[in-house]
């Protein structure tokens, strides 16, 4: 007779943990298997702990499992790609904090009672993954590095399944990259020259350097270069191979793939028929075909009339940004340019300084660098502020500094901590991995509409920032200068009015010790087009 599981017993919790781990590794003995089943039958608390543990195991699998591990074909050989190809982890977050005893406290039943809302299951984990660098452990050797084969080259009103991990225009895309698009259009340009315009809702995976897997939805593919000859779109039932082409593919329902050729020709191959070589029809310009998996037959024909716009063949041409540079400073001279800047070092906590040297301006302990001119979206439609910030040191308390850019400010310090007065402040917190926008003083209301991405913010690293001030909408993006895949943004609607429009840069006030030091470089302020609430600035990768 097996002993009952006692959730309050550290020994029992430890045992369950070990059994769950052995289950993950496939090393359970018969005896352990029997014991695990007994525990799980006995205790709801154990079942929940076990479920969390195993879901965690699944999450790790999904993040790290390489393509070949599931036997997926890397390119068009007719083998269905696996759904488990997620080569690298791109999520970023807080550092591991502390440790406690595993399974350390009894399960609170209130959790169970309070959590019957099944809708919360739709709280999704990261879908869009971003490649990371090499494995630093010499014992383990280099990890599989991502192979970048394409770029995201355009979007039009794109809504991603997980906006937190949405790629931005210009990002490199590796093989294995999945693009789960709820609505709108995105354009993917392969390095070989092929282009895909994906129309949401759609689930697409870049499964090779010259092809992709369309699980559901529709796309238009163009393979106009010599290098992209043979470009293949695979669906659950069909492979569509380019023969010098522009074509549309729609995975319309569970059995059917529809193909339409606009230019050139494609070769169609069933992926479900027993004898795949027996039928490989060539579809030519102006022709359409559908494949029914039930009958394993291609039905050739003309495109249905009145369906000219069934496939999106181009992205709407974006308006050219009418960008006019209003201020630029790389801080290469020996001193702050008085024609551009004002300096205030009167912070009440002391030791504030603003020093231009080493090709940058160094801000210490809330020394303020203030634009001499004022910049208002009333005048300029929208104002864009970009630059590069480096968290140099926080002395005895590393990763405690704060990058702050304040707009619509009087340019004067105020309050107990000597922050810039008035306006909107954009904060980037080292150590907290967090971006924020706050209004300072009166007259503003903020309504956050969007946060995207995650960003690890650490001392010693440089970050490019971009602030868009469209008057009624503001957005703030920060990107790791050394790793553009690490980027985050926050967008907010603003209501209110302001009377001053200086831009102020400063860091944190002095708190003892060596104090805080950050540096600022490559500051540009320009007049540009208005920013949309749904469209935070692209990753700043220049």
């Amino acid at each position: 007779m097996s002993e009952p599981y006692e959730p309050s017993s550290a020994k029992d919790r430890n045992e369950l943990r070990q059994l769950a781990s052995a289950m993950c590794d496939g090393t359970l003995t018969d005896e352990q298997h029997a014991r695990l089943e007994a525990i799980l039958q006995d205790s709801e608390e154990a079942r929940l702990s076990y479920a969390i543990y195993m879901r965690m195991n699944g999450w790790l699998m999904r993040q790290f499992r390489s393509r070949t591990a599931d036997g997926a074909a890397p390119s068009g050989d007719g083998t269905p790609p696996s759904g488990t190809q997620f080569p690298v982890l791109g999520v970023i977050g807080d550092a591991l904090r502390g440790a406690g005893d595993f399974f350390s406290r009894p399960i609170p039943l209130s959790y169970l009672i309070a959590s019957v809302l099944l809708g919360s299951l739709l709280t999704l984990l990261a879908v869009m993954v971003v490649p990371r660098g090499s494995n630093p452990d010499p014992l383990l050797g280099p990890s599989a590095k991502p192979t970048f084969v394409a770029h995201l080259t355009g979007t039009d009103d794109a809504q991603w399944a997980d906006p937190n991990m949405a790629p931005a225009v210009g990002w490199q895309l590796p093989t294995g990259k999945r693009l789960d698009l709820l609505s709108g259009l995105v354009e993917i340009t392969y390095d070989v020259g092929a282009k895909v315009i994906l129309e949401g809702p759609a689930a697409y995976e870049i499964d090779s350097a010259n092809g992709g897997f369309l699980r559901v939805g529709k796309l238009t593919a163009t393979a106009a270069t010599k290098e992209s000859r043979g470009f293949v779109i695979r669906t659950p039932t069909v492979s569509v191979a380019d023969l010098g082409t522009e074509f549309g593919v729609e995975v319309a329902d569970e059995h059917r793939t529809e193909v339409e050729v606009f230019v050139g020709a494609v070769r169609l191959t069933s992926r479900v028929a027993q004898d795949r070589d027996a039928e490989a029809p060539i579809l030519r310009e102006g022709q359409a075909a559908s494949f029914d998996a039930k009958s394993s037959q291609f039905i050739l024909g003309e495109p249905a009339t009145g369906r000219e716009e069934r496939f999106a063949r181009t992205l709407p041409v974006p308006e050219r940004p009418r960008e006019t540079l209003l201020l630029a400073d790389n801080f290469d001279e020996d001193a702050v340019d008085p024609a551009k800047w004002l300096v205030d070092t009167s912070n009440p906590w002391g030791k504030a300084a603003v020093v231009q040297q080493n090709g940058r301006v160094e801000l210490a302990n809330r020394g303020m660098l203030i634009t001499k001119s004022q910049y208002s979206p009333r005048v300029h439609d929208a104002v864009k502020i970009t630059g590069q910030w480096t968290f140099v040191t926080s002395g005895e308390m590393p990763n405690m500094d704060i990058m702050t850019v304040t707009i619509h400010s009087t340019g004067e310090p105020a309050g107990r901590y000597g922050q810039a007065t008035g306006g909107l402040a954009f904060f980037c917190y080292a150590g907290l991995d967090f971006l924020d926008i706050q209004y300072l003083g009166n007259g503003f209301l903020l309504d956050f509409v969007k946060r995207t991405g995650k960003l690890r913010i650490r001392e010693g690293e440089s970050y490019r920032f971009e602030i868009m001030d469209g008057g009624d909408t503001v957005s703030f993006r920060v990107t790791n200068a050394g790793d553009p895949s690490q980027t985050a943004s926050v967008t907010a609607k603003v209501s209110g009015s302001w009377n001053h429009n200086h831009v102020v840069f400063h860091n944190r006030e002095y708190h003892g010790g060596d104090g805080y030091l950050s540096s600022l470089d490559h500051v540009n302020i320009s007049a540009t087009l208005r920013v949309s609430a749904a469209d935070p600035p692209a990753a700043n990768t220049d």
Partner: protein
Amino acid sequence: MARNGHESRRLFDEQFVRCQDHLYTYIASLVPNAQDVGELFQQTSLQLLQNWEKYDAQRPFMPWACAVALNEVRTFARQQRHRDRLLSDALLATISETQFKAAEVIDARLDALGGCVEGLPPAKRALVEKCYSGECSIKDMAASMSLPPQTLYKRLERVRRELYQCIELKQPGEQMP
């Protein structure tokens, strides 16, 4: 009518795209072998696509999708149980039910997991990456490192324990045992 059908399909597609990660980890909670999870995930996706018209857009998608997945898992488990020491049919259903009851609790922890992995010391993170990459077995890895496999299993267990602790510590209120 056609418009309604189109709209239903659109809703289905949207939910289907959204649920992929959740569905995968759900299956993994019942069948721990990565290759099996991949197969079952594919099979479940196919079943969902083939039966999309049965989806009632007025009701939550995930319970329906997970029910389809559970059927696939149970069929698989009946065939494979002896080989893989999977849980009994009844326990698979019970574990599944537990997850529905505690959906918020579980989701909150998985939401925190990315940050916890990122916060692992480099060597531990590398171990996780390598072990979960599927590039080679733990035994092969251990051999290449001149370690007994048991040592590597133990290390992996410790890292999992750290991750579990971490996701618990990131919860604002009470923690799970």
